């Protein structure tokens, strides 16, 4: 593991509640979290513990009820809808379990979408997209439509899109959830490589196997961080030992 870079994402005392009165649900309670450049952080926890909520808040899709989120030196709470959209275009990329790609666009067009939305014209955006696709190892699939790609390939495209151009933070919500374990490992390897190449990642997963690719794991229960591990050594080595 290389030395870690500056803090890219910082959540401080973040609380998120849904509804009110008797129906109040505390999706997150006073969560503190930092993710640095070069770091891949896994989030684990039982269903309903607030993992997706954490991710959505980190990317500005959802807003905390209290607490602060800063992303690449910007305080999210101080930004209007437009500015947050801009931040998402330039700094953060999401990878979801499924429905990741816009079916009407080719792989390259999906990857270049955030760049084009940001005002980069078609040709340079495509150059950036092809570079990002090459980084995840599927440059040759650039002109295929999503329904002509396998699940693993689709997730690689999603990762490429999450890190295209200047984007440095990947928020991945169970990216391996819909994949078989071999393909899942594949996707994790790509994610790990991209983070090592100078990005940062926040990864929600149910499986310890995949969490093992992270530098550290945060455990959530009922919206509270209950545990946090340190970095693990050499996952590839562990894998080869694993008889399963």
């Amino acid at each position, binding site marked *: 593991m290389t030395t870690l870079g500056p803090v890219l994402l910082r959540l401080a005392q973040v609380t998120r509640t849904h509804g009110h009165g008797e129906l109040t649900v505390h999706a997150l309670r006073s969560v503190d979290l930092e993710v640095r450049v070069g770091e891949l952080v896994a989030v684990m926890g039982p269903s309903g513990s607030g993992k997706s909520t954490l991710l959505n808040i980190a990317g500005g899709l959802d807003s905390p009820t209290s607490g602060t989120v800063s992303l690449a030196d910007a305080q999210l709470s101080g930004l209007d809808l437009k500015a947050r*959209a801009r931040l998402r275009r330039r700094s953060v990329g999401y990878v979801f379990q499924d429905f990741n790609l816009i079916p009407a666009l080719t792989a390259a067009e999906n990857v270049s979408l955030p760049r084009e939305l940001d005002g980069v014209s078609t040709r340079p955006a495509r150059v950036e997209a092809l570079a990002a696709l090459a980084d995840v190892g599927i440059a040759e699939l650039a002109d295929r439509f999503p329904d002509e790609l396998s699940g693993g390939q689709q997730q690689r495209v999603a990762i490429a899109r999450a890190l295209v151009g200047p984007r440095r933070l990947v928020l991945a919500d169970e990216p391996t959830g819909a994949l078989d374990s071999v393909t899942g490992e594949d996707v994790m390897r790509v994610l790990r490589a991209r983070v090592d190449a100078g990005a940062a990642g926040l990864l929600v997963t149910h499986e310890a196997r995949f969490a093992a690719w992270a530098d550290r794991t945060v455990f959530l229960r009922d919206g509270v961080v209950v545990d946090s591990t340190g970095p693990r050594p050499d996952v590839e080595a562990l894998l080869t030992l694993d008889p399963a």
Partner: protein
Amino acid sequence: MSRGAAPWRAVLRIARRDAARSRGRTALIAVMVGLPVLAAVVIVVLLRSSTPGDALFTRLMVGEVTQARLSYHCPAAIVQDVRQSVGCSYDESRVQDPTLAEIEDDVRAVLGDDAGLVRLDGRRALLTTTDRSSRAGYGEVDLLGPVGGVFEPVVGDLPARAGEVLISSWLAEDLGVGVGEELGLRAVGEPEQRVRVTGMLHPFVEGPDVLALPGTLLPTAAQDVDLAPLAAQWGVEWWVTGTDPVTWDHVVALNDLGLLVRSRAVLADPPPRSAMPLHTDGELVQGGTSARTALLVAAVVGAGLLEAVLIVGPAFAVGARRSSRELALLAAHGGDRRDLRRLVLWNGVVIGLGASVVAAVLGVGAGAALVTWLPVGAGAFPNLVVPWLEILGLIALGTGIAAAAAWLPAHRACRVDVVAALSGRRAEAAPHHGVPVVGLVLLGIGTAAAVSGALRAQSGFAVAGVLLLLVGMVATSGAVVTLLGRVARWAPTALRFALRDTARQRGRTAPAVAAVIAAVAGATAGLVFLTSSDHHDRLTWAPIAAEGTVHIAVHPDELDDVDRAGLVARAGAAFEDVAPLATSAVVRILTVAEPDPASMSLSVWAERPVEAMCPVWLLERQATQQELADAQDDPRCEPGGSVLSSNPYSVGFGSVLVDDGTVVRTLGLPEAGEAAAALAGGAVLVNDAAALWADGTVHLTFSVYDMDGSGDPHEEELVLPGHVVGARGSLYGVVLPMGAWERLETLDLVPVEAGVVGTTTEPLARDTLEAATQAVADAIGPVASGVEVESPWVTGQDVTMLVVVAVAVVLGLAATWIAVGLAAAESRADLATLAAVGASPRTRRTVAGAQAGAIAGTGVVLGAVAGLLLGAVFVLVRRGQGFSADPTWQVVLPWAEVASVVIGLPALAVGAAMLLTRSRLPLSLRGSA
């Protein structure tokens, strides 16, 4: 901060591909937008092609060398655009009555002495071959000079000498003659002469049907003759020769002389609209389109456009909801609201533009094919004109409709809850609570404005009201659906589920309900208008005789030998040879006696006593607005009494009848017996009760005037005992007893035979009637004749009504189908749950049926209400269109047809939904992209 064009391009790309991917929906919208555009494009192409384009028009008017063509149109100033007269403004003080020499001097004063004038003199003429004859205009002009280019024959050659003629293709067809053949030609007042046809005129050239060189037939017109009678014959025209162009200023100056000018220079380079004085100080007598009519058209077109938008809308709403994940994804990757909105909006623009362009291309193709392939002849098109500007406008309109339809879904789409959409939770953008309130307010204002506007004949108000009303109705529909959800508590399971779902998913149901409202409102309004119009026709239907009565009329004109008594006897006998009459009577009408009946006309009317007259008529000045408004409610101002004109050469039965009672008795309307007895007793029949004076007399005015409008009319009054009849046919306006005219001292009038009326013992078969008609024509040809049988009232609207109902049902079903189809897809999970807890397939069908029923039912009821209001407003506006309210326009509600839509549409929708559900469900398990 602007991000330039790149985001547009990205969003447009998605919109384009989405349109291509969801083919069914795209096709549906494309057809809905494209079909009207296609129809409209074909219509504009045909319309534009039916008149000569600029190049052809110029050639047909001024040929290759002349500068302008001047046509004498009216004895006062005219108003024209570059091609035709817009009206003749009768400013009393400026009525002119020039001679030929005077007008030519006036023209030279305007154009300068260098301008040459070549004149065409015309007359009415009778053309005969051995077995056929026809009446047509005949003109003489120097065809060997510059004017020859105007009448360049399409077949054959120009006449080279006297005795040779060019004829129109219409006349050639009518007479069955071709180039090289001979004709008999007799112009009014001239002896018959044989002429040879040398060529055929272009079918769209303006002018007489027969053209010859000067000196063929007509004597040279003396320069001091009055222009008006000459013009009344066929028209007098000049071509301006020389090198100086005739400018628009010249045109305006010549218009003042009553001349219509078609100038080469002006046609090539039209003046700006602002330079065209379409309105002058005088009253515009003909041709001006009324602002009220324009507004009524605007209302119908506006409502139609609104309907189109409402009907196409749900397809976009469905599309936007189906792609809510895609939208959320776009948002997750930094698309802001504007980008999301654009995506849906561009989807509309892409489909609308594509459909409109394709429709326009097809329309131009179809129009061109029709123009090119329609058989050459009288009905053919002169040229193919493709009006690109108008077609571009129609493309823009089609695109606009699609874009407007996508507008609301787009605004809804941009408020998508990204997190919810991505996590698969149903993301329903919160409905605006203000909408139903705003809707109710709009509904109220709209109804008030529409009704009050209609009642006070202020179309502008009515139009605005109508549109507001429709929008209000649509906005309120959501609230009604919600209300349905509330009452669902008491409904059985399946129905309750369906109603709740319908209410909860308002984003999906509301557009569908709106579409049903639009379709049903349009149809209902149409039905109301049609029924009311039918009722109006029936009220104004005024039979002049009992059903089955035969009228045989003869129409000799100045070209015929006028032995009227003989003509009528021969016509009657010829008819009876084929179809014997049980009773018959000779019809006589009153006319001006010799010496010159051709140019004199007689009018007779019954003067009302002063207290029965509309106050406005008595004013010696322009009526004020207030007076006009009062007059609208005054029964005395309703159009009642008729003026009857009698000209021996234009008689139908609308003339002044003189009768000893036999004709009226034969015509056989109710009360014919009393009327006949009154006539026999020397009383005059009138059908305007107000024309009967207190002492039981009728005051008739007889007025004789020159046909061409020159000179003062000569009038005399006659007081006779009167008898009022109920028959409203204009024939019964005034029927004179025998001998009444002899009491006139200053007017010399005589009755002449005009035809025969009779009854048959049994109804005439169609072919018997045709044979008898032919026999009459053969017996008195070339004199024109007309045979008619009084027919019963028939409604002409049945088929139209059926089409309106069918269109409403199809559109309504389509809208419901879209919504229910989507509901089925979206409530798949719920239905699966229902099935899992043991609900039978029947339950699922019931649910689908109930959903369809809720949507169609709500839409149909609201739509019918809106439609009845709309229809009533249109009828009321129509009623108030004339000077005073026309009481024969009444709102008649077509309950049976409306009920068939109101009950039929939901029933069909429910039935179809239930039938289709079983086969749909497994299908819908494949994602919902």
